[in-house]
């Protein structure tokens, strides 16, 4: 909201640099000092180059402040260039990283942070520009999670069995795409989708029933609370007993997990309409159902979508966890638990990555629907 008034570039060099830039420069200085103190030729390569690149980019960004696009571009190039130098330099020197390596890495990360900050203050006029930015910013952020992970795991030489680096996980995803696809089909497209739809629908219907009949509301909500906390770990074996070991039992677990958030949120949402609006409907002698459909449900939509969003992540977790019990020999949960036992930790993480991707896409779809349906709500209209 409070965009600071544009400062003309000429006044800049005298103004203070943003804190990320300042810290990055400090890191470079410290890194240079430490690196020159060390024995040359030992440890990861490219540290000098990386430190230099960070320094250059930081200085360049400082000079270009006020021209956001140019600043972001130079930060982007500097940060990722340095990261690439560091990561390629660590090859063959796993576990030998010293402070200067981490300082260079930290400096590059700070540049990326600054880059994201600059970009998030931009509001491109065109819709496609906004979409691009909306994608670019989280991608940069995510890329840095991976870069830091890769660099620390390899720099510190963390055992592969504890935590494989992202590059190994990516390689595994590429190599096992057929297995992964089969697992996704089993877990997501069968268990999750069925369970989510049934669970959300059941929670919704139960909420309406509880709303319609005070008796049910008083009785069902406490019992619903109980059912909600039924820890899946206990329910899953029972569901396997009842529904067999294939996907229907997993869908049943998902139903149980998604039911409660939907119930609670819908019940709260149904009382979210304003008093005057409800009085208005009363003056029309509007029956229960018209009032429900025309006033209370629309007003409840923000709450219902809250539940749909929470459930979209719960559903996937539930299905995967349920597969830790009895399953056919396919599915993401099956693969995870089996491959841990086989010490194929990279495969475990490959499944986790795919699960995260699927879940995020699922959530994104729900969020898009929310924007379309609750366009009128102040939180979406902008506030």
């Amino acid at each position: 909201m409070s965009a600071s008034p544009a400062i003309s570039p000429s006044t800049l060099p005298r103004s203070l640099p943003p804190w990320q830039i300042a810290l990055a420069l400090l890191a470079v200085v410290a890194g240079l000092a430490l690196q020159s103190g060390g024995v040359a030729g030992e440890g990861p390569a490219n540290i000098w180059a990386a430190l230099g690149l960070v320094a250059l980019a930081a200085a360049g960004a400082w000079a270009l402040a006020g021209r956001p696009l140019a600043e972001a571009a130079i930060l982007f190039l500097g940060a990722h260039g340095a990261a690439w130098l560091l990561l390629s330099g660590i090859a063959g020197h796993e576990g030998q990283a010293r402070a200067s390596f981490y300082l260079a890495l930290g400096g590059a990360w700070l540049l990326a942070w600054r880059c994201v900050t600059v970009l998030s203050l931009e509001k491109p006029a065109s819709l496609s520009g906004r979409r691009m930015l909306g994608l670019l910013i989280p991608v940069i952020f995510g890329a840095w999670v991976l870069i830091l992970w890769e660099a620390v795991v390899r720099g510190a030489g963390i055992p592969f069995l504890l935590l494989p680096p992202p590059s190994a996980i990516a390689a595994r995803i590429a190599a096992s795409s057929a297995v992964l696809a089969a697992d996704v089909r089993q877990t997501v497209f069968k268990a999750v989708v069925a369970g989510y739809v049934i669970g959300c629908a059941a929670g919704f219907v139960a909420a309406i029933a509880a709303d319609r009949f005070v008796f049910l509301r008083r009785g069902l909500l406490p019992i619903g609370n109980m059912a909600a906390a039924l820890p899946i770990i206990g329910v899953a074996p029972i569901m396997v007993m009842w529904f067999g070991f294939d996907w229907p039992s997993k869908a049943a677990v998902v139903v149980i997990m998604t039911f409660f958030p939907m119930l609670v949120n819908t019940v709260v949402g149904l009382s979210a309409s304003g008093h005057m609006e409800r009085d208005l409907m009363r003056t029309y002698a509007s029956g229960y159902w018209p009032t429900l459909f025309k006033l209370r449900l629309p007003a409840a939509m923000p709450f219902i979508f809250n539940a749909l969003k929470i459930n979209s992540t719960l559903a996937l977790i539930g299905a995967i966890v349920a597969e830790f019990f009895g399953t056919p020999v396919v599915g993401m949960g099956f693969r995870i638990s089996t491959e841990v036992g086989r010490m194929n930790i990279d495969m475990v993480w490959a499944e986790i990555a795919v699960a995260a991707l699927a879940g995020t896409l699922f959530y994104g779809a729900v969020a898009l629907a929310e924007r379309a349906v609750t366009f009128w709500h102040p939180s979406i209209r902008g506030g």
Partner: protein
Amino acid sequence: MNAIASHQPATATPTASPGTANVVAANRLGLTFQTNDGPVQALSNVDLTIGKGEFVSFIGPSGCGKTTLLRVIADLEKPTSGTISVNGMTPEQARQHRAYGYVFQAAALFPWRTIADNVALPLEIMGVAKAERAERIRRTLELVNLTGFEKKYPWQLSGGMQQRASIARALAFDADLLLMDEPFGALDEIVRDHLNQQLLELWARTQKTICFVTHSIPEAVYLSTRIVVMSPRPGRVTDVIDTNLPKERPLDIREMPEFLAIAARVREGLRAGHSYED
């Protein structure tokens, strides 16, 4: 032409014009709200009958119970003492018979519906056919001069426009009894005059009964067959004035001496109800 026909003591039940059935009949009506801060007596001993086809204005200082009285008639609030009937039924039955249309003091439009859809709301609930609905929306939006804003959302309209949309919504469904709570409060004089005339015309044409809360003395006198003056703490009726002005009322009737005499009497009653006489 006798401007002030009868002056009854405030507590006596004013009789409706003979020959017409009573639409509203209140008897020693009282309503007390319980608040965190002790009880508030919003209505006390209100006696009132409104005959079919009357246009009754309620006027009184802010907080004297006008809205509360309208809400009791509309069965949005239950009286804590006394009795009230609407169309010879309990207010609840009357509401269930969809006996009235209500315009709230605030616009109360649904933010997820466009203006046209907001006006359509009561029609949908009462099962009016689609084509008929479109026609009525067109007509009532035109009446309040909102043609062209059908597709806007409430938050995209000015305060007065929202108020007019809510009037259109109440008019669109053609109830015999209209309860209007300061419908023209947010409107300028010209629109107000215009809508006053429209309302009178509608009233004359359709024989509706109208209960109308207003703060404007000229508006009250101009529109009404009867004016109920109220006073606060506790909210009660202090005066009931029959205007007996002709049914045909050009705007310049407001400069006639009969008109001014009634206005003066209302003003006097109003002033008496205020605590600060300065």
